[in-house]
């Protein structure tokens, strides 16, 4: 029986939409406080150098300068977002490891003065050899970027094996080995990072920042500044785009805090666009080797994946990123045995980290292009082949991840149908085989279609620091006015988390979302939410909000039941009233019901908590990958390739997404469309690359990203599977739909012109190179053909859990609801 909802499923405007269309929304850089000073960071021009001395004397004499600080003015603490990678300093004291590392900071009366003072800071650097690629870092173990890790310049080395892949390959009809490369790219949020710190005379400190994770910033600031966390308040301002780029504690935030403490004024540091390119923490460049066995029918017999990640200069989320290049792969298709080896290498470039899809777009590209190649060899339709081998719902994968619902079959059916796949596959292929000569002045363009699928987590099953507390909390307070206030640590980065909280509370309490006041992301007011990452917020905050609202509802029902002399179980809430559905004339207004509740119970404030079910695989490394549920996506791309210029023009993208339940279809579509767009940018344009140690394109003009003209029509189709783990059945939408876009484009290009570009981004140069090889009668493939000489760890061998039934109802902490 289908559930009936009043708010859920409605295409409502976001609750903060009005502020955003009127200019009322205050982002971090819009914050102005009386007596506020402006800060600036001095950043290293060297990719790798020892810092011999820093002389700030000249800078301090500039009129209007309040303070100049270096690392010596901060406690000697190294920090990092992951407990296992504490390798950063806000202001480097001994060594800089990349161009852009901060070494000093200035606070002054205005930005220009701060900038002028920065130029008068004398830093004595002793340059060291810079290692700018995986190959260089491995070839020069005598040059050490860091002193820790799993080997010289090796940050992390992991190897996991689930079952015997060699035996599986031996029993296969077809075994493919392919090598792929995925270049790094960056988030490019429209808002540059900014922070305002205000240390007050009572010894307390408030930081407003464009951050996706006020809680982690709060924890780390206490350590970095060596002061009690209880005296620090971190408020996430509305974030002008995150995509994972605002998930670490940053030098500008820490320097603003320290400067404010020293000068007794609020301090703002707003980064320039160029600085944002160096702050980075974006997509890792990853080299991949993938070997997969197939039966004649297209079943996967086993898969062995090796990944080498170019991590950049610091750890950041890199250990998690390394695991993520391997662990999510078995969630989509039946993969009975699986082996994964991964290594993250330090280089003297801005650190990579968690960009949308975190570590999974790269191996997804490899797997989906390889499937396309296998389908061709086996004479199978690539859509049908995928459709046949989908993971069964409510089973475990080889690497012990629990899959609940899976709507991927329906997603494939929808995109195949809507795109006219069957007709186009044969028609365009036939056209490609006819080599009709055309006059030179006519563009030679060929059309193609390509398909790919993917899956993604709806929230990481474990927190960044090990603990048994909730991942998300909500405090709900009912007001005698009939309004309800939600306090929740969730950070709205544009995805609509504030709105989701309002919708869910309104749904449970029979209110209009307008009656719900949401106060997010303030460590002094709101219960902890871990942050806007891993597509966790709708599910985790949503479940916490529902729990709090149900507790409030129970309390109000009890009071109204006494008043109306009915059984509390007979009551319902809707249309801002509380009453018995069959006797609705007697229903009392919600505001009156709150008064009755307050008279009976005292203040009506209730908490809700959520932590994911404990399903981590019982092996070391099993904590990365588990999620309450996985979203699924299928994508068909239609494009044409200009054979003279190598340019790819995208025409249409059809994308089917298993959302579990669309709490607001408008917002879900928005997430899907934004993901597709970002995937297109990665596929054909964007690259975070370096020349002579500096970023090759550190501006919005040089770093090419899609405009309205390059972004095709995106046709979104939602599939609802009503997942038992999600709030009212919902899964994620913010990251998963990006994943199939790049391989679908690569596969469509092959379909159009017969060229395999096994490397992202697929630039016109690479397509032309492939066409030239084809003309010469050689293999029309462009991409890497070798892998580094590298010894992975002895793999941890664990039995494959493939196909084992999932617990039907997982035990979830804090899930008891008083009746």
């Amino acid at each position, binding site marked *: 029986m289908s559930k009936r909802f009043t708010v859920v499923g409605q*295409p409502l*405007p*976001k609750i*903060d*939409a*009005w*502020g*955003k*269309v*009127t*200019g*009322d*929304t*205050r*982002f971090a*850089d*819009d914050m102005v406080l009386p007596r506020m000073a402006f800060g600036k960071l001095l950043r290293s021009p060297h990719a790798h150098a020892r810092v011999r001395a820093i002389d700030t004397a000249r800078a301090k004499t500039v009129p209007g300068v309040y303070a100049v600080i270096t690392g010596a003015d901060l406690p000697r603490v190294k920090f990092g977002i992951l407990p296992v990678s504490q390798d950063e300093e806000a202001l480097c004291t001994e060594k800089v490891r990349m161009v852009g590392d901060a070494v000093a900071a200035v606070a002054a009366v205005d930005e220009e003065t701060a900038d002028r003072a920065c130029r008068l800071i004398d830093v004595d650097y002793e340059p060291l050899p810079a290692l700018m690629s995986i190959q260089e870092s491995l070839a020069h173990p005598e040059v050490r970027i860091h002193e820790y890790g799993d080997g010289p310049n090796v940050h992390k080395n992991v190897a996991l094996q689930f079952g015997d892949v060699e035996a599986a390959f031996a029993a296969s009809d077809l075994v493919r080995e392919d090598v792929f490369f995925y270049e790094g790219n960056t*988030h*490019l*949020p*429209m*808002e*540059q990072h900014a922070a305002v710190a205000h240390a007050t005379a009572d010894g307390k400190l408030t930081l407003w920042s464009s951050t996706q994770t006020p809680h982690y910033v709060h924890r780390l600031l206490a350590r970095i500044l060596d002061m009690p966390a209880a005296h620090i308040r971190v408020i996430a301002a*509305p*974030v*002008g*785009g*995150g*995509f994972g780029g605002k998930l670490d504690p940053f030098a500008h935030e820490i320097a603003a805090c320290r400067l404010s403490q020293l000068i007794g004024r609020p301090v703002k540091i707003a980064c*320039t*666009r160029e600085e944002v390119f160096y702050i980075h923490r974006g997509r890792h460049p990853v080299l991949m080797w993938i070997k997969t066995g197939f039966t004649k029918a297209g079943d996967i017999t086993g898969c062995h994946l090796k990944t080498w990640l170019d991590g950049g200069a610091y750890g950041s989320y890199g250990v998690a990123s390394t695991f993520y290049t391997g662990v999510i792969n078995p969630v989509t298709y039946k993969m009975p045995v699986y082996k994964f080896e991964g290594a993250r290498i330090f280089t003297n470039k801005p650190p990579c980290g968690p960009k949308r899809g975190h570590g999974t777009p790269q191996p997804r590209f490899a797997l989906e292009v390889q499937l396309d190649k296998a389908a061709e060899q086996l004479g199978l339709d690539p859509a049908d082949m995928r459709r046949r081998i989908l993971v069964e719902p409510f089973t475990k994968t080889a690497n012990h991840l629990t899959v609940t619902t899976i709507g991927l079959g329906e997603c494939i059916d929808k995109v195949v149908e809507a795109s006219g796949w069957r007709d186009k596959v044969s028609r365009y292929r036939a056209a490609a085989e006819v080599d009709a000569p055309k006059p030179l002045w006519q563009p030679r363009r060929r059309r193609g279609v390509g398909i790919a699928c993917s899956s993604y987590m709806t929230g990481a099953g474990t927190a960044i620091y090990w603990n048994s507390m909730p991942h998300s909390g909500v405090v709900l307070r009912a007001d005698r006015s009939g309004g309800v206030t939600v306090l929740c640590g969730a950070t709205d*980065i*544009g*995805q*609509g988390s504030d709105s989701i909280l309002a919708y869910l509370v309104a749904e449970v309490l029979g209110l209009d979302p307008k009656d719900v006041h949401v106060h997010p992301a303030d460590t002094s007011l709101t219960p902890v939410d871990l942050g806007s990452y891993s597509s966790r917020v709708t599910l985790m905050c949503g479940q916490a909000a529902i729990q709090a609202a149900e507790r409030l509802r129970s309390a109000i029902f009890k009071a109204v039941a006494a008043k109306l002399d009915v059984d509390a179980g007979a009551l319902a809430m809707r249309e801002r009233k509380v009453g018995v559905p069959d006797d609705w004339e007697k229903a009392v207004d919600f505001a009156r019901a709150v008064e009755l509740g307050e008279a009976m119970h005292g203040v009506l404030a209730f908490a809700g908590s959520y932590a994911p079910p404990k399903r981590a695989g019982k092996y070391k490394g099993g904590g990365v990958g588990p999620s309450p549920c996985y979203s699924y996506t299928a994508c068909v791309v239609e494009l044409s390739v200009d054979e003279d210029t190598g340019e790819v023009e995208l025409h249409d993208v059809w994308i089917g997404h298993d959302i579990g339940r669309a709490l607001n279809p*408008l*917002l879900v*579509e*928005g997430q899907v*469309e*934004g*993901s*597709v*767009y*970002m995937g297109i940018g990665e596929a054909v344009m964007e690259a975070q690359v370096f020349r002579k140690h500096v970023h090759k394109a550190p*501006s*919005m*003009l040089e770093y090419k*990203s899609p*405009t*309205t*003209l390059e*972004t095709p*029509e*995106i046709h979104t189709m939602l599939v609802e599977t009503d997942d038992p783990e999600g709030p009212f059945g919902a899964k994620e939408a913010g990251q998963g739909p990006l994943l199939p876009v790049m391989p679908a484009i690569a596969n469509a290009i092959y379909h159009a012109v017969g060229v395999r570009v096994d490397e992202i981004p697929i630039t016109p140069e690479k397509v032309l190179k492939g066409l030239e090889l084809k003309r010469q009668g050689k293999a029309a493939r462009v991409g890497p053909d070798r892998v580094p000489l590298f010894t992975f760890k002895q793999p941890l061998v664990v039995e494959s859990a493939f196909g084992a039934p999932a617990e039907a109802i997982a035990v979830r902490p804090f899930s008891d609801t008083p009746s």
Partner: protein
Amino acid sequence: MNIRLSLTVNDESRELLVPVHKTLLEVLREDLDLIGTKHGCELGECGTCTVLVDGAPVLSCIALPADLQDSDITTVEGMADGSRLHPLQQAFAELGAAQCGYCTPGILLTAKALLADDPTPTRQRIREALAGNLCRCTGYTKILDAVELAALRMGQRPVRAMT
């Protein structure tokens, strides 16, 4: 060196004394507290800071007010008619065309100039008009939809306020 500026901003006359090298973006945000105008690059590359000068879209981060004496400037704060939102603002809110909302003011004003020039633009014309405004959240789809909806409504009758 300071310069005396005379500007009409959102239908109000403003007299200002500002350093001659200050950009229009800085004057709007810092001297007039009109923080609705955002910035994404301050190099004239992303379109975020777009405002209207005498009805035409201008990148305020590379415009010098000294060149704009006595001109008529519209920022996002000047789009609504009192408490009645401009149909573009209404449509952007209703259709989810603003996600993080950071690029939204610049896009709204660029679209306003387009609709003044062409009240019934094709989707391709809207794409061309907005090609200089980057948005990283929406994939542009809902933005194009919202401009189309606003154009449709402006061609018909005044929009009722949402309740």
